[in-house]
């Protein structure tokens, strides 16, 4: 358990004007920060068994589901908030949060015509086209507004292939047997504090089922939006890839600017059977708080993939620029022989943002392999930590892991930390770990300046180059969006 710690402070003397510019934190606007004026159906603040029952009742859930939630809630009450992450934030008052908020005009999920026009406008503003005829890119979208899934597009096309893409609430009605079989099977409610909380109060999320041998004909995308003040968002995503199937799934998130911190505690479960593959990409841009560190989302998320079948594969690709505090470790349980887990991550922190993120690769099957590429960029007064576990079990003969953790510092007031954990119980394992820390060099900036490129563009270029291995893993359109997002997130740090 080593800690490699780097702090820009030591090199303070070498900072000249360009670097000074890097330190000047201006007030870049979070352009997704608007609030939608919409009537909501909201539960009273606070959390108790009654609220849990209320949520379950509102969603018309079967009895077993209500019971499961209650068990989770009771378990949660016995647990303590985790203290080990390298982040600091004031104690959360869980009784001061609204656990259920839904747009009042409950839309008919079959037809977009019935969706509240205000909602459609919101998603349009966010650049998420919901009207199917407008979608040229062939991406099916599920939009989750506060607690409820408001619209899922391209349902019919997907149905022909037997692909189920719906909200979890709908899935509970239409395919209860599938939900019952897999929900909580990868992330049980006993897993951790936030997973237990999520299980008790989760309001919605996306459900995907890819039948045997089907290659999903389009990319599936869920767009999450927190709107209501004081609302926590607890969505739950469940994706099942049957034997020999494939799906690429994208998720994006934004929230309005609020002075207060909002909690987002999601759970994502992926089940991958023999010869199947899931590619899961995230561009996370929750409101990060302002330049003084006020407001912003607490993003405490449990994401886990179970590669149950032989030759199954999962890739997590994430670009994280948002949230005030992030606590997130998308993991892979490599149970099937020859199963493959990949984790590609760019985490950007600026101003007072804090991120403690990484992955877990649990090798259980034989000949399993995993790759971890993590790029952390710290600017302003932020703190960026990589925390990763590579575990090789007794029976996991010939397991392979390659880990590369690169950190980039912009300015002299930010921090980058790496916490790699390696636990090996099998002699045949081969595990490699590489880590680098660099500063955006004055020399690099001057070199680009000298070729006619402005300092801001130069920094973007350098940062994009640094993240290239991860961007290469993103679907084309998402990669473009991610690059733009990075530029906006770091705008402030270039003076």
């Amino acid at each position, binding site marked *: 358990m080593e800690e490699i710690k780097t702090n820009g402070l030591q090199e303070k003397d070498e900072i000249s004007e*360009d670097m000074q510019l890097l330190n000047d934190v201006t007030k870049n606007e979070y352009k997704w920060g608007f609030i939608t004026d919409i009537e909501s159906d909201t539960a009273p603040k606070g959390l108790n068994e009654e609220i849990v029952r209320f949520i379950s009742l509102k969603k018309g859930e079967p009895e077993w589901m209500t019971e499961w939630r209650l068990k989770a809630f009771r378990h949660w009450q016995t647990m303590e908030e985790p203290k080990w992450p390298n982040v600091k934030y004031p104690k959360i008052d869980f009784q001061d949060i609204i656990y259920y908020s839904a747009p009042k005009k409950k839309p008919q999920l079959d037809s977009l015509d019935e969706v509240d026009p205000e909602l459609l406008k919101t998603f349009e503003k966010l650049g998420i086209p919901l009207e199917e005829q407008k979608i040229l890119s062939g991406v099916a979208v599920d939009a989750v507004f506060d607690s409820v899934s408001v619209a899922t597009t391209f349902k019919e096309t997907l149905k022909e292939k037997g692909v189920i893409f719906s909200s979890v609430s709908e899935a509970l009605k239409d395919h209860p047997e599938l939900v019952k079989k897999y929900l909580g099977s990868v992330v049980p409610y006993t897993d951790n504090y936030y997973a237990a909380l999520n299980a008790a109060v989760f309001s919605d999320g996306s459900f995907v089922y890819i039948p045997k041998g089907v290659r999903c004909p389009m990319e599936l995308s869920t767009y999450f939006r927190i709107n209501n003040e004081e609302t926590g968002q607890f969505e739950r995503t469940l994706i099942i890839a049957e034997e020999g199937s494939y799906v690429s799934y994208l998720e994006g998130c934004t929230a309005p600017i609020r002075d207060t911190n909002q909690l987002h505690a999601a759970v994502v479960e992926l089940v991958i059977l023999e010869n199947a593959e899931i590619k899961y990409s995230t561009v996370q841009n929750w409101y990060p708080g302002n330049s003084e560190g006020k407001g912003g989302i607490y993003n405490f998320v449990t994401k886990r993939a179970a590669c149950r079948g032989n030759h199954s594969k999962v890739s997590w690709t994430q670009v994280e620029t948002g949230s005030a505090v992030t606590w997130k470790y998308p993991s892979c349980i490599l149970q099937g022989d020859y199963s493959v887990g990949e984790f590609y991550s760019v985490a950007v922190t600026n101003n007072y943002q804090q991120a403690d993120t990484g992955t877990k690769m649990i090798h259980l099957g034989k000949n399993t392999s995993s790759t971890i590429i993590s790029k952390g960029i710290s600017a302003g007064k932020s703190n960026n930590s990589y925390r990763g576990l590579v575990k090789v079990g007794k029976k996991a003969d010939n397991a392979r892991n390659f880990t590369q953790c690169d950190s980039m510092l912009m300015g002299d007031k930010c921090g980058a930390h790496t916490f790699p954990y390696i636990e090996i119980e099998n002699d045949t394992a081969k595990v490699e770990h590489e880590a680098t820390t660099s500063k955006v060099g004055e020399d690099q900036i001057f*070199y680009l*300046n*000298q070729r*006619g490129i402005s300092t801001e563009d130069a920094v973007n270029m350098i940062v994009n180059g640094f993240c290239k*291995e991860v961007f290469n893993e993103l679907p084309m359109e998402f990669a473009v969006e991610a690059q733009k997002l990075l530029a906006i997130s770091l705008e402030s740090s270039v003076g």
Partner: protein
Amino acid sequence: MLVIKNLKANVEGKEILKGINLEIKAGEVHAIMGPNGSGKSTLANVLAGHGGYEVTDGEIYFEGKELVELAPEDRAREGIFLAFQYPIEIPGISNATFLKTALNEVRKYNGKPEATPKEFMELLREKSGVLGMDPQFISRSVNVGFSGGEKKRNEILQMLMLQPKLALLDETDSGLDIDALKIVSSGVNVFKNNDNAVLLVTHYQRLLDYIVPDYVHVLSKGRIIKSGGKELALELEEKGYDWIKNDELIEENV
């Protein structure tokens, strides 16, 4: 094209340039020679606008425009090009992206339309041909994993692509074997015409066998202590820098 008047500059508070006077006209090639630490590279970097160098006195005019307050990217866009002594690596950014961005920035600034991908590729093919560069290099990251010679050639390629008015070559010959030196020199000779100018900064005379200067200036302790024609370089080669330094001492003592 370039007029430098009584230029003084500091690095980390220490005065390196102690009053440089120099004029370069279009069509000319000037060579600045001098021993290590005389301020040759400082002069090149000050002209390019490196933030680590502070101009404390004097004036620099480029095409009639005062340079000192101009940002380095604007100097580049105005037509000043510095071929770096130690070219910088930019991991993850391909030479193609880098060159194209630079070319279009310069074009935009000068009111010209951006290069189409076809124009760009044709220009690139032509210019890299001059330098005998493997076209594969274009997809590699800027200077990453390049040998010393490849890096220098890449600098010259950038110069040929951007077509600056004034090219400052900072010890472009250092670390080159004779074949690479010939290729790099031929690149400079292809570049040279009556409308542009070249300022070579070099320690050794051998570069001047391939790029013939119109003027040679000897820099010592932050001042130009002697100027002459190309024969001055040969004289220096023969007698060494001590000859000039002694000369200077005598002059100062008289």
